[in-house]
């Protein structure tokens, strides 16, 4: 079942095209990771899908309903967590939840039970009486998520839910996302973290307001554009790493070389062997060399696709 479907969705602000003819499809129960540099149009896409902005052209279907024709019918089905904390800072945690719950038609016992349930789920129990404005960043994010899940939506739009959150809390949030997903809830999540992207069912990469890749992470890594025929990917650990990078970039068999953490990722001609590379580096005084073949990472995929896109523009 398709939960979210975009067809050539476009949004212009005056002369600026923030979203340029984006088409994609997300199945029910999937976690769709939406990536792209700052200002590429991620938040705008989410706002279009939540009915906060009207598309300039193209359209989208949420849970089978057209966002242009039937925006109100969609509201009950979706939960939205905006990039910036947007619950009431001068209300307590409980008051915020009660307020949003009551707007969705929850009341009395049902509302009480549901907010207690959600507070437990998000580890907010005991914070009920605290003003939302005095919560720490991580707790604010959880409260925002609580507000978005309260009315049991089928589809959730989460705009950078893990921005500015410590690694442990980030992992806990993702555990929750998988929990939601296992209940059949569809999640549309934007992020800048590659490790999060790797965990998604599908990912999309938007660059300069155009979607340049979408699909399962494994599928994207196998794209022919990412693995040009006659090339192979290698990872090199060595010392000193910057000198090695300089050497490799001038080597005739190297197509691309970038530093990745403590190692160099290399896209080289298929003819280049591990021993060739090792020898070339050793001559120049690089030590403790370890070369091994690797799969492309999602980051490799996005970097490559971005370069191709850039090259195509000029």
């Amino acid at each position, binding site marked *: 079942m398709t939960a979210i479907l975009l067809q050539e969705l476009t949004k212009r*602000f005056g002369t600026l095209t923030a979203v340029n003819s984006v088409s994609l499809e997300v199945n029910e129960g999937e976690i769709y990771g939406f990536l792209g540099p700052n200002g590429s149009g991620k938040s705008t896409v989410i*706002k279009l899908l*939540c*009915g*906060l*902005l*009207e598309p300039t052209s193209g359209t989208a279907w949420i849970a089978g309903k057209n966002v242009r024709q039937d*925006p*109100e019918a969609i*509201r*009950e089905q*979706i939960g*939205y967590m*905006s990039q*910036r*904390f*947007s*619950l*009431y*800072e*001068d*209300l307590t945690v409980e*008051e915020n939840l009660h*307020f*949003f719950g*009551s*707007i*969705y*038609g929850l009341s009395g016992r049902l509302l009480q039970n549901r907010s207690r349930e959600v507070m437990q789920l998000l580890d907010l129990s005991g914070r009920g009486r605290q003003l939302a404005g005095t919560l720490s960043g991580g707790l604010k994010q959880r409260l925002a998520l609580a*507000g978005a899940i309260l009315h049991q939506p089928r589809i959730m739009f989460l705009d950078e839910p893990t921005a500015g959150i410590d690694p442990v809390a980030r992992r806990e949030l993702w555990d929750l996302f998988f929990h939601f997903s296992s209940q059949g809830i569809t999640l549309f999540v934007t992020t800048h973290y590659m490790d999060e992207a790797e965990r998604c069912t599908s990912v999309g990469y938007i660059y300069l307001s155009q979607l340049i890749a979408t699909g399962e992470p494994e599928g994207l890594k196998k794209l022919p554009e990412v693995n040009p025929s006659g090339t192979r990917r290698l990872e090199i650990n060595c010392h000193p790493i910057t000198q090695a990078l300089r050497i490799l970039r001038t080597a005739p068999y190297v197509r691309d070389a970038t530093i990745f953490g403590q190692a160099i990722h290399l896209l080289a001609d298929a003819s280049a062997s591990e021993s060739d590379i090792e020898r070339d580096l050793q001559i120049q005084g690089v030590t403790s060399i370890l070369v091994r073949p690797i799969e492309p990472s999602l980051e490799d995929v996005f970097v490559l696709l971005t370069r191709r896109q850039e090259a195509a523009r000029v």
Partner: protein
Amino acid sequence: MFRGIFSVLYKETIQIRRDPFTLFLILALPLFQLLMFGYAINTNVRNIRTAVYNLDHRRASREIIDAFTNTEYFQIVRWAQSDQELNDLIVAGEVKIGIKIPADYTDNLLKWGRATVLVLIDGSDSSIASQAVAVSNSVGLSQSLRRLLEQHPVPEPALAVEVRPKMLFNPDMRSANFMVPGLIAIILQIITTFLTAFSIVRERERGTLEQLLVTPVRPAGLMLGKLAPYCVIAFLETCGVLVVMRWIFDVPIQGNLLLLLAVAVLFLLTALGIGLLISTRAQNQVQAMQMAYFVILPSILLSGFVFPRESMPAVMQWVGYLIPASYFIEVMRGIVLRGAGWLELWENIAALALMGFLFLTVSALRFRKTLG
């Protein structure tokens, strides 16, 4: 159509309660303003500071000085000893009026039956100057008449034609009676317009509006839920300023208080509607503030609050018809000062009702559930 109204109303009430200082300001500020402006705006001229340079000192000169002070318009605060000093006192702003009685005043009166008194008037404040001219002329006239009658006694001293103006309303011609009802209208307009405009624009600024808009809340429910608490506050405010008007400025309400309150509610709705209309446009509080001023300035200048609308150019009069405050000020003065009722005022009331309905409807229609 009104989905979410009670949730929003409840939330708004909590937020207002949680910020008692703002609530205090909202309630107290207009009262302070009313007190301040009510005392400051006083077009009645009394006890104008006056200096006298008397070169004569005989009985007749003292009589004319008494005649001036008896009018209560002039209060003698200085006695000058030279022309130069009299002049300097006015230039320095110590006094507004200088009266010079020449040395030959009594002589001239006795010998020729005519004498001159010089009255110097500081013309920089036009309302004081014009009254000073009128009053000193009438002092001169009554003094002349008295002397004339002393010399040529008539059996029944009476003027051939006497004009006797009689004030029907506001018999003491107190400017408070005239100004305060209008002032109340202006103050209510200012606080309600600002309050409502800000209450929505603030949510837009903080991003909470975005979260609200993705919920199934209906525009009308959202707006009315937000308005209701401010409507109550503004109504309490109205009662407060009426109390100040009645017991502090001592302006009695001649007409029906209930009618007055009912029309006040209508007026508040139009002001709330204007605030809402602003909030559908303004992206932040600064813009909202500017737009509110754009509405409030004409309400002060063209509504008849300060300047009578009859004396304005036709265009300005027409603009005045588009301002709710014009009608409300008319109604306030009618009920408070003249004891007018529904029959005399229904046109103004109808105009207010129409405008309130129009503003609220237009803003509800304009308020679409999108951001951009």
